[in-house]
């Protein structure tokens, strides 16, 4: 059992949790994740470690409620418990001095981009953060990013705040302005990551994406998280989750992530029905 120390609603459906996990707090490096189960008979889901406080013995995770487990979690507050939290899992981000780095977070992907952004800054890079959201209220972590990055550009799909349009539009704009970019990290929905890869490809800018395939164990045991990178099969939970964006087969990732869509919908319907009956 892992105690939830604090929660905060960051945007509609997006909650930040502070968890008491002293050992993970000491070990975790940017880019790593945990696998958690909310309840004793629940599914194992991967969630990135957005922040750590080794002294307080806590980690922070930021979760978007999109299916059953994450919706159940949204109902938990401080003092509540998660049944299991295993981590840190995955390879840490490869943080080095590259020059000018751009980190791009779309939606809850910003939570994943955030610790990497800070680490890139700490490694003496010039860091530009681009944060995307559907509309103003969905742009998360802007204040935290402002303390971590040199420049922060919020973008909204509906133009209600910051740059009007997709994160790729903003990235293209920077490139068109003649900014010299050495490295791009993009985390968000698959179509967004694929679009970022296409923007940087012609310019030969090193681009990394953090992939989100369906996982079960997170230790390399099941192979359910396999992705194709440069024509080779890799297990995202142990070989990743970060990979070279220009080599990732995004279409395959998208198809594999849809594998249980029927089940996810049905399970959510059950959850809503149960809620309505109460």
């Amino acid at each position, binding site marked *: 059992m892992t105690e939830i120390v604090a929660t905060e609603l960051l945007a509609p459906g997006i909650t930040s949790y502070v968890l008491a996990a002293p*050992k*993970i707090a000491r*070990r975790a490096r940017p880019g790593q994740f945990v696998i958690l*189960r909310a309840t004793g*008979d*629940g*599914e*194992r889901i991967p969630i990135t470690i957005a922040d750590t406080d080794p002294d307080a013995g806590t980690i922070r995770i930021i979760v978007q409620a999109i299916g*059953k*487990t994450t919706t159940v979690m949204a109902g938990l507050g401080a003092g509540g418990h998660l*049944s*299991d*939290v*295993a*981590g*840190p*899992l995955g390879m840490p981000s490869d943080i080095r001095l590259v020059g000018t780095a751009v980190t791009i977070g779309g939606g809850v992907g910003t939570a994943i981009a955030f610790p990497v952004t800070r680490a890139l800054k700490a490694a003496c890079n010039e860091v530009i953060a681009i944060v995307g959201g559907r509309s103003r209220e969905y742009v998360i972590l802007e204040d935290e990013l402002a303390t971590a990055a040199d420049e922060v550009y919020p973008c909204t799909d509906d133009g209600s705040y910051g740059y009007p349009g997709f994160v790729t539009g903003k990235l293209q704009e920077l490139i068109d302005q003649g900014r010299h970019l050495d490295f791009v990290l993009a985390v968000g929905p698959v179509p967004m990551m694929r679009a970022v890869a296409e923007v940087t490809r012609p310019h030969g800018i090193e681009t990394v994406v953090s992939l989100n395939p369906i996982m*079960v*164990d997170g*230790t*390399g*045991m*099941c*192979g*359910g998280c*396999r992705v*194709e990178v440069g024509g080779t*099969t890799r297990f995202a939970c*142990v070989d990743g989750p970060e990979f070279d964006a220009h080599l990732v087969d995004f*279409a*395959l990732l998208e*198809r*594999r992530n*849809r*594998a*249980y869509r*029927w*089940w*996810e919908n049905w*399970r959510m319907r059950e959850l809503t029905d149960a809620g309505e009956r109460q």
Partner: protein
Amino acid sequence: MTTTKREKMRMVRVAMPEQQPSERRWNFDEVNLGLSEALAVAEAQRCLFCANPPCVAGCPVNISIDAFIARVAEGDFSGAAAIIKSDNSLPAICGRVCPQEEQCEGSCVLANKQKPIAIGYLERFVADWERNRGETAPPQIAAPTGKRVAVVGSGPAGLACATDLARAGHQVTVFEALHSPGGVLVYGIPEFRLPKAIVAAEIDGLRDLGVTFETNAVIGLIDTLDDLLDTEGFDAVFVGVGAGLPRFMGIPGENLVGVYSANEFLTRVNLMKAYAPGADTPVFDLYQKRVAVFGGGNTAMDSVRTALRLGAAWAGIVYRRSEEEMPARIEEVHHARDEGVDIVTLTAPLAFTGDEQGSLTSMRLQKMALGEPDDSGRRRPVPIEGSEYEVPVDVVVVAIGNQPNPLLMKTSPDLTHTRWGTVVVDPETGRTAKRGVFAGGDIVTGGATVILAMGAGRRAAAAIDDYLSTGEWWDGTTQTR
């Protein structure tokens, strides 16, 4: 009543009462129902109590089979249990899953002339009898030694090692990567062959011995072996992390939606209980679907029979050699066939094809012929040109074996390993190249058996006990804390 040898030879081997195939193919309850006391005693009385029993030599942990069967024949089940338990700490499990035909029963003198004594069924009977009675003699535990041992991995190797160490008075913590302990016994072998309540009872027994279980602990990531020894204050470590890395075939279409590794398929169904109504973790809806399983071992049999129970209209094994070469337990092959599993031998896959959604729709197969024996002594399958054909299929399970998972090895550069990724140890003691670290089970042998893993865990426990009392390592150095 004394029975002459001649009379005994005329008696028939007991048949295991089992659920009817037509019924059990729809449920996950155990197939074998277990012997009654009367059946067990009758079977035991068939034993010739050989002077130099070959069955004992055939058992990897050399259980005093003749002695325990003698007790069963007299109706002294608790005496029989004590004998078994002195060599095997997991008899309820081994009695169910050991490949007896290659081990104890295969060596029984009756194996050729008549039918071997049903040693596995009797072992299972005794263990179940003792567990169901509920009152086992309190375990003998030596005085606390003040030494702490970390056991990494909670499969049969780790559990057996922890048992002996705890009995020897050491303080044992078992670290398990998953959320529940048991290793392959819980995530791999299905309920219908090994009820999870039995594994849980064994683990409770270990807790009673004072063993602590830390689940969700992926060693190599949360702590390295050095951390365990240097920071966490453990005096020795046993590594029993198994061979949990699934092998794929490397053929086109293997990443289509609908192609599972056996590990993923079985983990979803067993550990995550995808078969039970209301479970949170999904598995593809197999109702009225066609499911092909590639491989010929226990993992393949477990997968195909699971698929059948999930409602598959057609569930088949596709194996590239002939049935004789199948490494699965014979009983499982028979059970599978009785349940309606199709066994297609001398056939190998060439490719999988999918629709525009990326979902599997068909497989391309090729017929094989048996050629010259290969390194393993089995005849090598050779493709027959022009025999390719295409068949529709909805779900494929790849069950061609597992390799050691490199996760722990990556952070333990001072362990030596073979080019197959298995850890190199001294076979007698399980000592690795790293001071204070021992290993055993599938991580050392590659995918093997429960009883071999258990035996390795016990040998390592004895060596760890020795190391902890003397402080002597194989290089001759002595270290005292």
